């Protein structure tokens, strides 16, 4: 009975998040495509002749990386002040507050699915022969969903107590674009500290996965997929525990 009640609430909250997003940016949907496209244009022009030489289908390669990075960056940074921006709800209504974060992440997931579908279409138009591997893309979305949800749970919870976390995270996101293989290939950083940073960055795997599925037309091995699923699930469990631990204090600090 209570599970059904919260499923209904989650449904309603996800609709709410969509409506709020539409209002906050009039062309919100368009922007979520336009932003990576602008970045794509710049990066493509800058790196086409250097790093682009060694990478096949460099434009599609860039596009996939940018779409996934932008989705991660946008969704997580929107979640930072989620509990605060809805503080009338957080502070005065009795319900499990993780549903707020979950619903926002679900609304963002739809955008990722749409943007990635566009990636697939662009790939097909630019002469890449697609294989059945493309059908495995939802697995990547699921993993990215879990990652975004975990990070959002941590950030939204922290923001209640530490208000400048938004600025700190913004600076981190700017760094993240350079420590993720978006406009260069993983092999570019084979030695030293950079390699380990890349290996520790979960986005590296997610982007590599989708590139393999779309450009190379074959899935990454079974093992790395399971490994990443396990790691991200573990992260989710930890962040959920953290969130639930601090949840009773939210309305005292808002």
């Amino acid at each position, binding site marked *: 009975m209570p599970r059904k009640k919260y499923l*209904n609430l989650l449904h309603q*909250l996800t609709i709410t998040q969509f*409506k709020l997003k539409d209002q906050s940016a009039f062309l919100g949907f368009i922007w979520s495509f336009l932003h990576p496209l602008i970045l794509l244009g710049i990066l493509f022009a800058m790196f086409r002749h250097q790093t682009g030489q060694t990478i096949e289908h460099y434009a599609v390669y860039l596009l996939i990386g940018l779409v996934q990075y932008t989705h991660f960056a946008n969704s997580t940074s929107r979640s930072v002040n989620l509990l605060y921006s809805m503080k009338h709800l957080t502070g*005065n209504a*009795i319900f499990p507050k993780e549903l707020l974060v979950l619903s926002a992440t679900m609304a963002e997931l739809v955008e990722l699915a749409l943007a990635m579908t566009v990636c697939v279409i662009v790939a097909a138009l630019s002469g890449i022969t697609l294989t059945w591997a493309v059908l495995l893309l939802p697995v990547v979305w699921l993993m990215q969903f879990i990652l975004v949800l975990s990070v959002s749970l941590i950030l939204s919870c922290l923001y209640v107590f530490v208000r400048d976390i938004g600025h700190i995270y913004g600076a981190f996101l700017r760094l993240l674009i350079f420590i993720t293989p978006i406009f260069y290939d993983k092999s570019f950083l084979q030695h030293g500290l950079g390699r380990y940073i890349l290996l520790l960055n979960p986005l590296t795997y997610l982007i590599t996965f989708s590139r393999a599925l779309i450009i190379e037309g074959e899935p990454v091995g079974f093992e790395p997929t399971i490994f990443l699923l396990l790691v991200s699930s573990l992260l989710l469990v930890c962040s959920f525990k953290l969130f639930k631990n601090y949840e009773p204090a939210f309305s005292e600090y808002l």
Partner: protein
Amino acid sequence: MNQHSASISNGSWAIRVRDLSRSFPAQNSNHTLFRVLTRQVLNGQRNSNGFYALKDINLEVVKGEKVAIVGDNGAGKTTLLKVIGGLFRPTVGEVHTRGDMVLLRGAEIGMVDELSAAENLFLYSSIYGVHREKVKKNVDEIFEWAELKSFAHARLATLSSGMKTRLAFSALRHFDAEIFLLDEVFSAVDTHFEQKYLEVFEQQKSSDRTFLIATHDMKFARMFCTKTLWLSRGKQMAFDSTDEVLDRYMAAST
């Protein structure tokens, strides 16, 4: 301490509060990372020299009982309701409740200003377990009762505070919860609606739902509530039959 006579354990309690105290830290406004960290280092024990909003509260409310909470501004009425609703943690003591709870605060309704009145109605009802389909069926009746039909698609921010309470209260009539925590629901409501509210309460008088109502309306308390809790500066002055407590309270405040 004569309250202990009332807390003889029988099976039918809905709310049980034991030795509850709630303190708030003296200064709690600056939330930057630097401040939070230095505060952690400088004084390890939180809430050490704050003020007590509630001190040594003991009460047991039987299922189906209607309880008024009276006291001057700042007596701790809202804090008590929030602690019982699980939105504030007790600093000392325990709070137990049985059954689904609803919290309605006349001063700050748990709604989202950026959404329309109708969208808020769906969200608010979903939070308290009403299924979307059921809300859809009742939406006209709810707006009609609240006499807000022409405002259904207006942004909530454009409604006056009295109108917002009317909407929330109208929705609340369809809630299926067991415990209703109401905080100053009569404030900002005109006499016409006060009458309509009273009719609703009249119907609930013999229901098995538990009501905890913070109010300044003594006439209403005598009409609806069998028991009354009198708080003064966070202290429990009395918890007994309404007439007895109110006579003492009135005598004390003149």
